[in-house]
């Protein structure tokens, strides 16, 4: 799970660069809350007979407390990447708590959850506080950076110019953004989705290490590309705008919630890509990644069942009987 941490570093750097130190704070709060929630839930509900006296030793050597495996860290990071930079600090806190407690621990802990925990947190925040989670600010300019590096927290607040993300620009005003801006990330958006370059760097690392396999991202992006092409939209815009790249490489590839077989993964990616474009073009939301991945997560056990092979027991005949 620490692979995801290393792969997220370019994104964290890019988001801090674009949106200031507040981005780093949001990320940190989200991560710390996620890990603290998981630790507390496991101490109180999963570890029977946990002794509080030699706390650190018992914490590190208990069989049931698995906070240090890095999955809560990854969930906190990914949740932070879906939040706008101007969110008040209680948003990542509540979101991380819901993501871990309801998105993961209630199902039974790591390996047992059906839905991607970070996206569960995100969907919860979107439904409960739609205003705070969809008010975007523009990236800060160079001259502001000097002021923002001041010592007191007041200077870290982005009194930012509120701006619209490329997708909301498209859906509400029909205005497209140039491709270069989409790639580098000098646009408004959530913390992790703006800089495609950083996402691709992190994804390249994950693919190299073998943590994710290429089937899901390629089929996701490919299906989104083809469907938007067929429907008459600019396909490259749809691939680079919004959280599609982040979703394809980091969210949809979450191992617990994606299918196990190769063809299952391809089906999963195609389904998620198709749903993303449909929600974006015909649904009420400007961004469809979150819900499309959650819907496909729900279908994962079914996909697993129908893409697995049926097995014949090995034939017993003269060749094998001779031994």
């Amino acid at each position, binding site marked *: 799970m*620490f*692979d995801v941490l*290393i792969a997220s570093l370019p994104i964290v750097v890019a988001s801090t660069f674009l949106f200031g130190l507040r981005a780093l704070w949001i990320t940190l709060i989200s991560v710390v809350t996620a890990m603290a929630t998981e630790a507390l839930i496991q101490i109180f509900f999963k570890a029977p007979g946990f002794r509080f006296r030699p706390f650190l030793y018992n914490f590190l050597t208990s069989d049931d407390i698995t906070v240090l495996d890095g999955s809560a860290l990854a969930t906190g990071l990914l949740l932070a990447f879906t939040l706008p930079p101007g969110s008040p600090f209680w948003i990542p806190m509540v979101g991380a708590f819901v993501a871990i407690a309801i998105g993961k621990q209630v199902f039974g802990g790591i390996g047992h959850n059906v839905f991607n925990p970070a996206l569960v947190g995100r969907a919860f925040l979107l439904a409960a506080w739609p205003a705070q989670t969809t008010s975007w600010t523009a990236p800060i300019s160079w001259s502001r950076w000097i002021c923002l590096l001041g010592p007191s927290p007041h200077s870290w607040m982005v009194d930012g110019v509120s701006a619209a993300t490329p997708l909301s620009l498209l859906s509400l005003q029909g205005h497209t953004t140039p491709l270069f801006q989409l790639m580098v990330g000098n646009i408004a958006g959530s913390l992790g989705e703006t800089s495609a370059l950083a996402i691709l760097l992190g994804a390249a690392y994950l693919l190299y290490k*073998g943590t994710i*396999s290429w089937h899901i991202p390629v089929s996701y992006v490919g299906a989104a590309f083809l469907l938007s092409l067929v429907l008459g939209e600019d396909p490259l815009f749809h691939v680079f705008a919004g959280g599609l790249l982040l979703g394809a490489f980091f969210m949809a590839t979450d191992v617990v919630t994606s299918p196990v077989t190769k063809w299952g993964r391809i089906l999963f990616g195609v389904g998620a890509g198709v749903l993303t474009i449909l929600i974006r073009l015909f649904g009420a939301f400007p961004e469809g990644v979150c819900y499309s991945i959650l819907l496909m997560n729900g279908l994962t056990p079914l996909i697993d069942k129908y893409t697995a092979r049926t097995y014949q*027991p090995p034939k017993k005949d003269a060749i*094998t009987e*001779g031994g």
Partner: protein
Amino acid sequence: MDGFLPTFIRRKARPPFPGRLAQEGPALKMEIPERVVVPLQDTPDTPYEVAVRAEETVRSGQLLGWMGKAPARLGVHASTSGRVDRVGPAPHPLGINVYSVSITSDGNDEGCVSSPLKSGEAGGNGQKAIEGFREMGIPLNYGLLYARGFKVSSLLVNATEFEPHITSSHQLIREFPQNLVEGLKVLMGACSASRALVLLEKDMPSLIKALKEAGAEAPGIVVRGAGRPCPETATKDFLLRKLFSGGPAPAEVMSVSLSSLFAICRAWSSGEPFTERLITIAGSGIKNPQNTWVKIGTPLAHLIQCSGGSLPCLGRVAVGGPLMGIPQYSLEVPLIKKARGIFAAVAFLFDEHRRSRFYKRIPCVKCAKCVDVCPASIIPSFIAGLIDNKLFHDAEQWGVFNCIECGLCEYVCPSRIPLLELMKHGKVSLGGEGCLLTRSNLETLSG
């Protein structure tokens, strides 16, 4: 350093090779152990006969008894000279306790007079020859030969090495190609086989060349390069079908191991029984990984200590290699005839049950690394989950018997789930201990 590093640093699909051969030079010879335990059974139910008593003095190569019942019996010989300490149950790598002969060695290793097989009545072919080899303690597949009337059409020698770090087969080929080919020719004569196929990895051209040159005047011997190493557990099912399915009589193929060929050559030319074999001792717990000649029946503790391992640090000692080896509870078990290597891995942070806390098991994260790496195309994590919950019938339907027990799934699992152990548990619960492929490979009596 196979056990140390955390998941995100290592864990490619196979453990890394430390260079192709553990050493460049010739194989070493291990010093004679203080005690040798020679098993007379493979499992606690195998029949046996004993020919010595306690307190008797024996010489190296002397017959101690037989494994199995005549005519399908296998001779068991003393590996070193000394005094018989005890004849009774002792630990065994495959079973719990089997009837064994413990010999306290006197350090001299005096041999006894023996006559080479080629001059005796065992010379020639057919049943007498095969039984002569088995009396010398060489494991050959008696069941298959008996069923075919001691005539097979082809022999298969799987000289590829699936386990990383274990290089004893290649060392044998490097040093003694003539002996191996000689043994192969003798065996071909004994079972009237017209051809023999030797499989080696394609990326070892020098070994292929050495074997081809040694077998140049024997027209039936074919040496072929294989693209990927094939585990011997898959030999019977997969390899035989693939290689011989187009040929004339695919059922009449017997597979032999390289060490048996070497032992046949030795028995043929000088009459020495199978008391010594070349193994690799490797692993992160071994300071000096080496290929050595060791006596059959040497306790594992002696082997590990002589190659520089220190016993308290070891987390897992397997008879075999890192992937398919059978992990041991006790290091007093003897080395058996068909083991090709010993693999000792270190671990640390032991808890009170002597399991390593660093590698504790967490629930399956469904990362599907096991699925990606499985050569038999089953879903190990799912089957292991079924077996954990005792749904053995469902496990059978999901393909537990297609597993060839190669151990790759257990190696790549980031959650450290003992997948291979669970698959074996499932097989045993469904079909008994005889279904285990890794076990039947190490059984001496059935060859």
